[in-house]
């Protein structure tokens, strides 16, 4: 079984999931290579090597600095064939979730989305992925010749394992119909909840957007991303890309801090696989406490400022 790890870059920067998937490929104990697509990308080999990549192939196309759904998919499908891979690993990032199925369709391969566990079972893969927003876990098998897997960020840890990567550059000529014109970054470099190791989320209990400096202050001290319940998003207090839950994002950070969130089933569906959950809520009967590892039953407007104060001390 040979694995191809697609190392996603955005604006010339590798995403963390690239290193996580290299760690997964190594853990699976199968030969693997790495593929990168973009315009100016040659200097990324050193970073990939640091995490254990021994062979990196760059598919370079001057007009594909930005992501192109059909352009990238054609190149990646060709890479799978050229590099002789049976398994393609991508991150279950926005781009991975778009590129994965397109590439799979070209290869007539089956794809499993947002997987949380992958293991080798004979010459097959046994894959676990949450379904129904994590209310149940499905054990999946892919019976196609090539198997495409997008792996949820943050589930596997990137491990430094320095290797000298053999680098190969290929000119990738394709025609494409669709390309990203522009990346509009609301807050540049804002950490997305799906990638964050720690998330501090606020709900209706926050009372209004004017109090969000508490969530942001705590998040900054934790190095965390900020999330929100749907109630906070619907009220227009927070952008909906922060929404955690069944109709928002599904997250699995090491630590999830729920502040003024009751713990409705749709919210729990999106965050119940977090390793540790902290709940701050003044209602002792709030369902979030059934799931929380640590809870404080008190007014958040006392607790959060105190947390910020103690963290700063």
């Amino acid at each position: 079984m040979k694995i191809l790890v697609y190392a996603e870059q955005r604006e010339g920067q590798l995403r963390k999931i690239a290193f996580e998937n290299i760690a997964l490929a190594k853990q699976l104990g199968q030969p693997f290579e790495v593929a990168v697509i973009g315009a100016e990308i040659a200097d990324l080999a050193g970073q990939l090597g640091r995490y254990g990549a021994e062979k990196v192939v760059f598919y370079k196309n001057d007009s594909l600095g930005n992501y192109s759904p059909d352009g990238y998919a054609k190149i990646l499908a060709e890479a799978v064939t050229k590099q002789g891979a049976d398994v393609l690993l991508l991150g279950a990032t926005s781009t991975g979730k778009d590129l994965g199925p397109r590439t799979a369709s070209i290869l007539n391969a089956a794809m499993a989305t947002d997987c949380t566990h992958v293991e080798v079972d004979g010459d097959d893969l046994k894959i676990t992925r949450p379904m129904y927003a994590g209310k149940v876990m499905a054990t999946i098998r892919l019976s196609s010749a090539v198997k495409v897997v997008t792996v949820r960020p943050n589930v596997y840890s990137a491990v430094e394992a320095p290797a000298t990567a053999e680098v190969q550059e290929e000119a990738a000529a394709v025609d494409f119909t669709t390309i990203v014109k522009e990346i509009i970054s609301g807050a540049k470099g804002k950490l997305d909840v799906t990638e964050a190791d720690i998330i501090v989320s606020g709900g209706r209990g926050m009372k209004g957007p004017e109090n969000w400096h508490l969530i942001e202050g705590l998040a900054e001290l934790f190095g965390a991303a900020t999330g929100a319940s749907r109630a906070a998003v619907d009220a227009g207090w927070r952008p909906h890309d922060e929404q955690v839950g069944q109709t928002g994002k599904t997250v699995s950070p090491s630590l999830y801090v729920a502040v003024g969130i009751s713990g409705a089933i749709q919210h729990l569906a999106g965050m119940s696989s977090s390793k540790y959950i902290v709940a701050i809520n003044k209602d002792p009967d709030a369902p979030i406490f059934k799931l929380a590892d640590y809870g404080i039953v008190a007014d958040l407007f006392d607790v959060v400022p105190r947390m910020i104060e103690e963290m700063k001390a």
Partner: protein
Amino acid sequence: MNIAVCIKQTPDTETRIKLTEAKTVDESDINFILNPYDEFAVEEALKLREKFEGEVTVISLGPDRVNSAIRSALAMGADKAIRIKTDSNPTDPNVTAGALAAELKKGNYDLILLGKQAIDDDHAQIPALLGDKLGIPAVSVVVKLEVDGGKLTAEREIDGAHELIECSLPAVVGAQRGLNEPRYASLKGIMKAKKIPIEEVDAELSADQLQVVEFNYPPQKNPGKIIGDSADAVPELLRLLHEEAKVI
């Protein structure tokens, strides 16, 4: 403008998923609804029809029960409906996409709208798969859409930012929350929807290459610990996070 909307029937979000002894999903107590993301797709189609005129056709693949989701979309205001008949939903989204593509090729659609994801299987694959199978542009997780002549501009949500994408029609668009505010069906709409015939077509299904071996419940969490009932519990909380959980 000739618009198709692909819709799926899914359990409502309140539903607790129960498993059978054979480790399959027990559907007996499930309350089925129109997939929430597909409501945004239907709404966007209706808004475009108001602007450009034309026709909105909803297409759903699935067993008899999905007719109720089709009726919901018709009640919102869609003009026509097609059900691709199957005994159950394929486990492999590539198979669903193949059957949808075959049906979509028969119509002369300028725009094909979908939800970005079905909240049961959570594949989030079909919009992109259709793009490849139909050989037309596909953009998913769209929060803003503008159609102008033969061109489309879409704002797509990505991790921590938005992407602006321009492409030509026909195209496939996957709707994300934020795109619009779906309307409620009016009583008149509901009555009218009852009279619209649902055209039924046979499915051309290839073999599933994705199999679900079994379902399991996620690992149960131990009941948590209430550390205190005032801000004085904060030092202890931070100590536990640092020393016991080792997450900070």
